[in-house]
């Protein structure tokens, strides 16, 4: 006679309860929305991370308006040209700030202390942002877009992806630009910020390896805040 194995009792029987338990355990509210940061976070490098997110918000907002109105509006009306320029310059600022932030975090070896996923999500965000911008340039519906598309076509064909990712196909490029790639960028940025909240900002080398300051911090943990950064 066999006995039915007794399931391990859980505090919540439903999957929503289990997801909530896991989410709160991984990212408790005091980590998700902290009111203090270590003093070494007071650095201009992090301003450029925030500036990247601010630029992304402007990109999404201006891009949404452009997609609602269409090419004739953004080429032939003053307001449309204005929003077209806002979209372009927000992209310029996005890449500018993101590259400065990326350089800073590279030289700080920001993957230390169990922060590999924090670094990887940030680096992949940059890599995904590049085709997001390219698909935007080839979706302008002007001679500039045609020139860029025919130049990019040769490069993409040379690596064998031209048939799948066809930069001269406006419909495909526009779908990539207004839906698929922005979703990927926003998802990656969201994951990046949540991982920063979970693991904390990487401490400086000297603080991590100081001889009299106790053992190095355990992987994935954040030293206690010693000063608030407003």
């Amino acid at each position, binding site marked *: 006679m066999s006995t039915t194995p007794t399931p391990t009792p859980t505090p919540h029987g439903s999957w929503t309860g289990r997801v909530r338990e896991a989410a709160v355990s991984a990212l408790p509210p005091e980590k998700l929305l902290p009111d203090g940061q270590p*003093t070494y976070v*007071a*650095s*201009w*490098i992090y*301003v*450029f991370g925030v500036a990247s997110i601010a630029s992304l918000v402007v990109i999404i907002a201006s891009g949404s308006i452009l997609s609602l109105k269409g090419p004739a509006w953004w080429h032939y009306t*003053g307001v449309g040209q204005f929003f077209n320029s806002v979209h372009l310059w927000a992209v*310029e600022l996005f890449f*500018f700030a993101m*590259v*400065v932030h990326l*350089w*800073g975090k590279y030289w700080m070896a920001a993957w230390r202390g169990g922060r590999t996923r924090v670094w990887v999500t940030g680096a992949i965000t940059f890599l995904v942002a590049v085709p997001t911008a390219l698909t935007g340039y080839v979706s302008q519906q002007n001679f500039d877009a045609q020139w860029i598309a025919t130049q990019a076509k040769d490069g993409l064909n040379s690596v064998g992806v031209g048939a799948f990712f066809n930069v001269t196909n406006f419909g495909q490029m526009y779908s990539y630009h207004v839906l698929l790639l922005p979703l990927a960028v926003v998802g990656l940025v969201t994951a990046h910020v949540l991982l920063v909240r979970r693991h904390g900002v990487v401490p400086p080398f000297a603080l991590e390896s100081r001889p009299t300051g106790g053992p190095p911090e355990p992987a994935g943990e954040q030293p206690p805040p010693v*000063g*608030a*950064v407003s």
Partner: protein
Amino acid sequence: MSPTTTVIGAVFNLNHPAHVVHWHFFQMSVSNVVVIGLMFLVFALAIALPFPGATRRRGGGS
């Protein structure tokens, strides 16, 4: 073109082929070279300049 647009457009005359920096294999438009140069400059400033209030938070100054 409105007078305002004409004046703003006159600040930077873009009605010509792009200027290019070309040295051996290296070829890049001047505008891209300027942007990359600015990124290096801003990166150096971001490392070198103290963040406002950072010294006070560390207890090392008034």
